[in-house]
């Protein structure tokens, strides 16, 4: 089924700064959805709060703009309720790796069939430029006037180690490449993480488009085998090892593992939302209680 790209547009007023990395990401996301032919009414985009959270307003599917840090548990509830839906969770680096880190850790173990796109701009944008879990050491922000003295969180390494079955990283400055990664994530059966470098042009003076362009290279072109977990881990650590001179983007790791929901016999035939609840039979319960 083909869905036209323009059908995914909405008429909402844009709330991102001119030049924001979110535009590239939005283009890639809509392109991926259109090319996959995902019916719009069977797609839910669940966002957290932050500049990333606004994404659901600009893609004409179902949307749930949840709370800061909570897109993953909301998306999980939606998926378990209706496994027939395509569910995409989106949040920022602060959202997903900071305040919502506990959900990130555990959702990977469960392997729900969800795509999770992280708008990683390495700081807090909507709250006007504080350090985030992925801010590089030495970076000066509103909350680190003398430079960051904590090691940055490595989402890719955590993704591989944590049990995500699709781990990728894209760059908003290359929406065509990013679109393919997102397509792969949505099509993948299991929990797919796509961490996206998404430059914040207003507050992040360090990690600019140019900064990334000078450093990123594509794993596909480098002959990386995403089935090789050890090699994937090696690549995940390359950025910090090279002091961020070489930053790989692309698909790091992919494996096939049963999803959580396909192991539940209760929803083998039909999703929970299709269960008839008009007159639930509880007579079996009485036998045990008598």
């Amino acid at each position: 089924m083909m869905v036209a790209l323009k059908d995914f547009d909405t008429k909402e007023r844009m709330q991102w700064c001119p030049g924001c990395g979110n535009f590239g990401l939005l283009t890639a996301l809509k392109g991926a959805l259109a090319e996959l032919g995902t019916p719009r009414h069977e797609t839910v985009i669940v966002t957290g709060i932050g500049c990333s959270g606004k994404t659901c307003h600009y893609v004409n599917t179902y949307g749930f703009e949840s709370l800061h840090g909570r897109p993953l548990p909301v998306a999980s509830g939606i998926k378990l309720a209706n496994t027939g839906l395509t569910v995409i969770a989106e949040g920022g680096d602060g959202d997903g790796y900071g305040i919502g880190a506990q959900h990130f850790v555990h959702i990977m173990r469960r392997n729900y069939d969800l795509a999770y796109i992280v708008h990683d701009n390495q700081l807090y944008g909507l709250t006007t430029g504080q350090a985030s879990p992925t801010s590089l050491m030495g970076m000066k922000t509103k909350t680190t006037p003398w430079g960051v003295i904590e090691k940055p969180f490595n989402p890719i390494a955590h993704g591989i180690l944590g049990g995500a079955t699709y781990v990728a990283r894209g760059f908003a400055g290359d929406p065509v490449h990013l679109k393919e990664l997102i397509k792969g994530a949505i099509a993948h059966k299991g929990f797919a993480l796509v961490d996206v470098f998404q430059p914040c042009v207003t507050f992040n003076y360090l990690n600019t488009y140019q900064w990334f362009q000078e450093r990123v290279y594509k794993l596909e072109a480098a002959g990386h085998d995403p089935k090789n977990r050890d090699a994937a881990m090696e690549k995940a650590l390359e950025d910090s090892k090279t002091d961020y001179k070489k930053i790989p983007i692309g698909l790091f790791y992919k494996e096939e593992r049963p999803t959580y929901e396909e192991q539940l016999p209760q929803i083998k035939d039909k999703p929970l939302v299709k269960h008839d609840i008009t007159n639930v039979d509880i007579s079996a319960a009485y036998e045990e209680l008598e």
Partner: protein
Amino acid sequence: MVTGRSLAKCFTRGGLNVVAYPEYPSIIRGGHNTYQVVVSDKPVHSPVQQSDIIVALNKDAVFYHREFVSQGGAIIYDSSIDAQKFKPRKDILLFPLPISELLAKAGGIPKMANTVALGAALALADYPFDFIEHVMRDEFSRKGDEVVKQNVAVAKAGYDYAKGNFKGFKKSIKPASDKRKIFIEGNEAIGLGAVKAGMKFYVAYPMTPASTILHYLIENERKFNIVVKQTEDEIAAMNYAVGANFAGVRAMTGTSGGGFSLMVEAMGMAAESETPVVVTLVSRPGPGTCMPTWTEQAELRFAIHASQGEFLRVVLAPGDVDECFYLAAQAFNLADKYQIPVIILSDKFLGESTFSTERFDESKVRIERGKIAKGLPELAPNTRFRRYALTADGVSPRALPGEQNGMHVSSSYEHDETGFSSEDFSMRKAQADKRAKKMDALIREIPGPALYGPKAADVTLVAWGSQKLPCLDALEILAGKGVKANLLHFSYVFPVNVKETQKALSKCRKTVLIENNSTGQLGGLLKQYADVGFDFHMLKYDGRQFFPEQIADEVGKLAAAGYKGKKEIRVAEKDYEYYNTQRYGL
């Protein structure tokens, strides 16, 4: 626990009225655990302070409980213990039971010591033995016929020994009828009510005393054909529940106060996004970790005020297992129809106590899903469904994902009619007004307090939630003392039905508010909303619920004094005297 439950089941099978009540500390081994079974052929609702028969399984138990035996009551204990050393009251009958000897003769193993005692207790109550066999079969049939037979033999050894040797105990109980009753815990009844209401998804993080809802539902997950999920924390649990409800599935989460603290954030999200959600809050003493395995009613205000902002919610406080079942079912209707959070507020006492009752009348459970949009007209290109349309009654039809032409954003931000974030002042006000407007219809579904006992009385007890149970039994005791009392009980605690509350209270002469907390939270609430007050406040907050004797005692004193005296009555418990070998030189 298993032994106590088996004993209680023997009585339930005999068509009797049974209340079973566990007490235990927050440690797995080495604490003092008790299980009280109250049985009667007349209605009975609550645990009591004084027991007629104490089955003491160790020395400490004889020691602790010798103060809590009724006049002429008995203690059954292992014959290796020298109970006389503890100087029990003279009227107490001491019945030593040679447990290891009886076990050996019956071919049992040491683990079955409790079963010998169970047999003896049943014999002392002069109750027929054959009930044990049926109950043992239920309890142990999974472990094979041999285990069942062994347990029955062991129980019989205790039973026969008691019949032959324990003399002078006056009370007895006979089976009342063959009519089958169910024996159900408060928490189980909430779980079952939710299942009946079509709850397909339960999601929670373990927390005493709410965990038995999780256990019960997960044990029966496949039988009920529902999905039960244990999450990483209560934050996740609440967000899962909201997500599932958004997707159109009736979903519930459950916890105690500490976990509810973590859920508060997402409760606000449910309110702002107008997503229905049901939360069961089984409270225990607070603040902090406090006394995890004990009880208190101190979270009424918390439930009503939890989360930033102002929004509508419903708080239901079941007063017995039947109300647990029906209110759990009703919670989903209210949540769906008004697209609001609904909290079922129970507590450890009701939640973990087990009661005999009739099978629930399922015909009373209706499924009302409220406004769900279906078959929507085609949307103009690049536009969205008006999920938050400004309707006259404040409830806007919601479209579930999967519904063609229902695309919109459900948002925790203030939003316009399609869910797009809006900070327009007029839209903010319009949406806030729309949400508040739901109250007009909602309040018509909130009954006022229920009256128990005689219509006209000299004194009216006023209680909410679980304290209905000791109050009902206190009415009986008071009647015996010649005090004409009745009970006004609130199970729909919020919002307050002002008219009905005022009407009910205007008919009362003297009133005693009875709450299991230290500040009289319902009293404050009723004063605030309905401008009503009470003559006396009876409060208890030592970790236990009220016992009927305590209520009857205090109200009896008030009656004797012509209802004059201090307005505030704080009831405290006598501590168990801990077994102290040094002090007693044992």
